[in-house]
């Protein structure tokens, strides 16, 4: 097979390299990521509005770091409400407070809260920065799909009538009810929870802290739990657990909702209801995310209950994982089989997210007397006995999944007891560049494959030169003021945090993937091992130097 041509301008004759179905947060992130790698993308969305209601609000550190790489993280953080801590109450009594990021030296906080409509708006604005590469089509509903081994043919209903759009690859980012999934006849097995939840966004001026507040047996609500989050613009998200028998139609009427809100904030505070809905949740996933040239990302591939904020955050990490692989394949720099590792890696993440969110739901909704005794026992013990707080499950909040042991990573024969291992997401740390400017390590990772080298001073340029074509090199030094050879970024680890978080001694090197995960760790600069690991991480294990030698 001849490698596909280098990026062609959108609208050129023939197939488009990538068509994304769905302009939600995941589809838009995919488009921007691909464009940042020079790949033209067409995005089709069936309507022309951003998400109604606020839907997702909690965006995790890792998501913000991905959006930083795509040039839109700062805007999200500037508008969002930053938080790292949560409190768990039983009735009016605070059982404990936890901090998800109890140390400094990270650019991004554990979370920001930001309404999904702002997220989508900012992503759309960012996509418009790539007019040559991103073709955003509103009111384009995909109505048919056909594929052979070479590409996909989509039927699209547009305001001008029906069109056929040909693509080499299609990313189905069309949400939890994915019409693409249905059209392809793919089962979506999982578990449905009977419990119903009222989720309301209210505008009011109230002095709740910028923390996640979770109540078991709240005094203001007859149900088993409630959850409160602060959002921008004086909007608060309140979740009320209603029980399995609640009538969804009735419970979403203002006559039912307002008294529940009044019970929290009192009669005096002026309150306006922005949006509310009643949900029952499920956890489900496709058995496989890659079906020929159609790849499922975000909610179309997997859904979880929202406790833990793993839905949207998981989807953004799908985009992060897939797009560099797709770009390499489209540029002819990697075999098509690299896409299968998206399924392997994000399948593990989906399983982890589903496991965590189902366990939380189980804890929140005891179904038998025995379950209730365990749950209440944990709550009764939690204030006094630290072990019970480990069992208390009011949400396990989204964290990036480790890809350790999966096929692209090179196993580490002697991993350090502390520090990063192959497969781990890269840690952030404050660094100072050669010009004396303070910055962040994560700003230098992700994008191309990068060799991250820890050293006392700058290694001999001869040892850095020609390690592998296309491999960026970043040197982190213990001492200040070092300069590197051309093309090598030298960063001073002024507080020693980078070396500590990576578990690195002088001489330790890491191969960093384009999605800022560690692919391999080396005790020293060993060109042959580095080249092998690079070949493996790029999906070309047979091209490794070790085999050829």
């Amino acid at each position, binding site marked *: 097979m001849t490698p596909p041509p280098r990026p062609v301008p959108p609208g050129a004759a023939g197939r488009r390299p990538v068509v994304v179905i769905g302009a939600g947060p995941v589809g838009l992130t995919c488009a921007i990521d691909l464009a940042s790698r020079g790949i033209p993308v067409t995005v089709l969305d069936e309507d022309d509005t951003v998400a109604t209601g606020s839907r997702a609000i909690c965006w995790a550190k890792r998501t913000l770091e991905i959006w930083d790489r795509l040039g839109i993280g700062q805007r999200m953080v500037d508008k969002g409400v930053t938080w790292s801590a949560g409190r768990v109450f039983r*009735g009016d*009594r605070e059982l404990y407070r936890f901090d998800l990021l109890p140390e400094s030296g990270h650019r991004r906080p554990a979370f920001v809260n930001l309404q999904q409509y702002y997220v989508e708006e900012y992503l759309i604005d960012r996509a418009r920065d790539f007019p040559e590469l991103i073709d955003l089509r509103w009111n384009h509903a995909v109505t048919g799909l056909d594929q052979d081994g070479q590409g996909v043919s989509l039927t699209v209903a547009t305001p001008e009538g029906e069109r056929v759009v040909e693509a080499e690859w299609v990313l189905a980012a069309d949400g939890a009810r994915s019409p693409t999934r249905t059209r392809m006849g793919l089962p979506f097995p999982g578990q449905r929870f009977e419990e119903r939840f009222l989720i309301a966004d209210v505008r009011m001026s109230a002095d709740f802290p910028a923390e996640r507040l979770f109540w078991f047996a709240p005094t203001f609500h007859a149900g088993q739990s409630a959850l409160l989050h602060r959002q921008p613009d004086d909007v608060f998200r309140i979740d009320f657990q209603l029980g399995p028998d609640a009538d969804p139609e009735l419970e979403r009427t203002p006559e039912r909702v307002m008294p529940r809100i009044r019970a929290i904030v009192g009669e005096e505070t002026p309150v306006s209801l922005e949006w509310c809905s009643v949900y029952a949740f499920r956890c489900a996933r496709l058995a496989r995310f890659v079906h020929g040239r159609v790849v499922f990302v975000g909610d179309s591939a997997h859904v979880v209950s929202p406790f833990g904020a793993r839905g949207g955050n998981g989807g953004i990490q799908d985009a992060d994982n897939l797009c560099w692989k797709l770009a390499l394949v489209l540029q002819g720099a990697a075999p098509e089989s690299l896409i299968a590792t998206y399924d392997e890696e994000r399948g593990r993440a989906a399983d982890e997210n589903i496991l*965590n969110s189902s*366990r939380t739901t189980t804890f929140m909704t005891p179904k038998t007397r*025995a379950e209730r005794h365990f749950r209440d026992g944990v709550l009764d013990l939690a204030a006094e006995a630290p*072990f019970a707080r*480990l*069992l208390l499950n009011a949400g396990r909040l989204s964290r990036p999944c480790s890809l350790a042991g999966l096929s692209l990573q090179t196993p580490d024969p002697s991993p350090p007891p502390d520090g990063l291992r192959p497969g781990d997401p890269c840690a952030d740390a404050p660094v100072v560049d050669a010009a004396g400017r303070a910055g962040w390590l994560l700003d230098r990772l992700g994008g191309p494959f990068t060799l991250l080298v820890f050293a006392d001073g700058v290694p001999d340029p001869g040892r850095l030169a020609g390690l592998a074509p296309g491999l960026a090199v970043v040197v982190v030094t213990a001492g200040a003021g070092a300069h590197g050879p051309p093309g090598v970024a030298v960063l001073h680890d002024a507080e020693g945090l980078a070396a500590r978080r990576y578990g690195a001694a002088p001489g330790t090197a890491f191969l960093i993937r384009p999605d800022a995960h560690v692919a391999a760790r080396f005790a020293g600069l060993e060109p042959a091992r580095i080249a092998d690991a690079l070949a493996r991480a790029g999906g070309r294990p047979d091209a490794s130097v070790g085999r050829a030698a």
Partner: protein
Amino acid sequence: MTGETMTREPGATARLRRDNGFSGGADGVYESLIRAHRGLGDDDSAALNARLVLILAHEVGDPEVVAAAITLARGSLHRAGSAPDEV
């Protein structure tokens, strides 16, 4: 630890470990306990719990720790707010 005598008050539960005794797998332990009760009626559940306590008390291997655990558990019964929620 050596030379420490068992005191009833105020530190009767001081012998209990304060570190993470679940090796990071607390949620998995909780899930396996819940699963163990699937399909059992109330009596059988209570009987299962009694057997589990006996086995685990033996595994603990230290009668003083078992006594401290009993003190902690008794003290937490019928705590305000622990009445079963209305269903």
